[in-house]
């Protein structure tokens, strides 16, 4: 039974979420919009928890609190340094456009809300089906089983999408100095010394957790990426000899390992992504480890936002003198 207070919580939380989304879209200052969006994704994780979706909540917490916030703030700073800190004025409409858009949105709202009535009152869902085949999947957690076994091609293509994103970002521009000047702080250095091992450890913990409970490669990769971001913020760079072929190989490693595991099936007379029965667990775990590494690097590269250049550090340091010092 849901206690009354929890019900109140469930009424207040969506209201706050809607308010945050609305303010994030309408506030004139873009920095405020970004902060409101960060708060929005934070509370969204609470909503996933309330809806009993711990995997999604973990992913939202890991990505929303770490990578997305950094991604938005870094991009906003770059946009503002190029285009100036400018208020984004609220929309001014031609009246015909306003009427058209308003009607379309209201019609869509009415249609979607009305379609709620079409939902079956006693839904069966695919849960029982998944549970029946869980033993064959090699892992004990239904969501991981769906992700890496039953619907493995989704996950394969999703990693492909991430890889393509990294390639697209690298095509767009060369990496610019990540910090305009190094963030020199003894405290941050000490903080990183403590946090980086902890983040590495918890990333491994989430990965291990994924085989029998909520967790998994993407969540683990987000934690790892957050660790790399912390290092970047305190001025770390990848040496030039690593930022060429080795980095590129590591970026594609996860995708190709998954692909290799996927075509074991056709080679041994099974369907694509059907693993040999005795090898399911080790294969899934190996693929997850490599995926974690690659996804973490892809996310970090996305925040850096550009490709490494020839013989320089990646990302390049803020001043040429620092380059000599650090190498």
């Amino acid at each position, binding site marked *: 039974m849901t206690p009354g207070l929890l019900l109140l919580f469930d009424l207040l939380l969506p209201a706050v979420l809607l308010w945050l989304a609305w303010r994030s879209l309408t506030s004139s200052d873009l920095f405020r919009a970004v902060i409101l969006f960060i708060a929005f994704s934070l509370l969204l994780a609470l909503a996933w928890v309330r809806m009993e979706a711990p995997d999604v909540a973990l992913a939202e917490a890991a990505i929303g609190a770490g990578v997305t916030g950094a991604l938005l703030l870094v991009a906003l700073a770059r946009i503002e340094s190029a285009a100036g800190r400018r208020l984004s004025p609220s929309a001014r409409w031609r009246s015909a456009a306003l009427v058209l858009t308003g009607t379309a949105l209201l019609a869509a709202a009415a249609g979607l809300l009305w379609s709620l009535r079409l939902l079956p009152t006693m839904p069966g869902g695919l849960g029982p089906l998944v549970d029946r085949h869980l033993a064959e999947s090699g892992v004990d957690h239904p969501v991981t089983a769906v992700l890496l076994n039953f619907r493995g091609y989704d996950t394969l293509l999703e990693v492909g999408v991430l890889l393509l994103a990294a390639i697209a970002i690298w095509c767009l521009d060369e990496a610019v100095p990540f910090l305009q000047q190094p*963030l020199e*702080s003894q*405290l*941050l250095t000490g*903080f990183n010394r*403590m*946090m980086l091992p*902890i983040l590495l450890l918890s990333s491994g913990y989430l990965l291990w957790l994924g085989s029998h409970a909520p967790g998994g490669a993407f969540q683990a990769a987000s934690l790892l990426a957050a660790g790399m971001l912390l290092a970047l913020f305190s001025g770390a760079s990848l040496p030039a000899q690593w930022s060429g072929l080795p980095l590129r190989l590591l970026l594609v490693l996860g995708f190709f390992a998954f692909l290799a595991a996927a075509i074991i099936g056709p080679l041994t007379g099974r369907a694509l992504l059907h693993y040999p029965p005795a090898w399911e667990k080790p294969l899934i775990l190996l693929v997850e480890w490599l995926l974690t590494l690659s996804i973490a690097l892809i996310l970090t590269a996305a925040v850096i936002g550009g490709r490494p250049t020839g013989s320089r550090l990646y990302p390049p340091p803020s001043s040429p003198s620092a380059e000599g010092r650090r190498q």
Partner: protein
Amino acid sequence: MDPRDILSIVFLLAAAPFFLAGTIGLLRFPDVFCRLHALTKADNLGLGLIVIGLALQADTWLQSARLLLIWLLVMLSGATVAHLIARTALRAGRKPWSGRS
């Protein structure tokens, strides 16, 4: 009622004022340095009391240890972030409130 439950309830109820104080401080204090001071009360004491209250209810010591780890991590992050934000504000030329304005 189990004395452990009573202790838990006392700790949990004691936590609420600190979060409220943190929020009110955030709203009412005059500048960013004072607001940092209010914020860290929620980080350290508010969350700490909740962690203690819940740790008393935990079935195994591992669960209590996990709760304590969460608290330590939040305190560690809170302290670092408070320092960095204060430093940034100071370098950006904001003068701490001196009670005159």
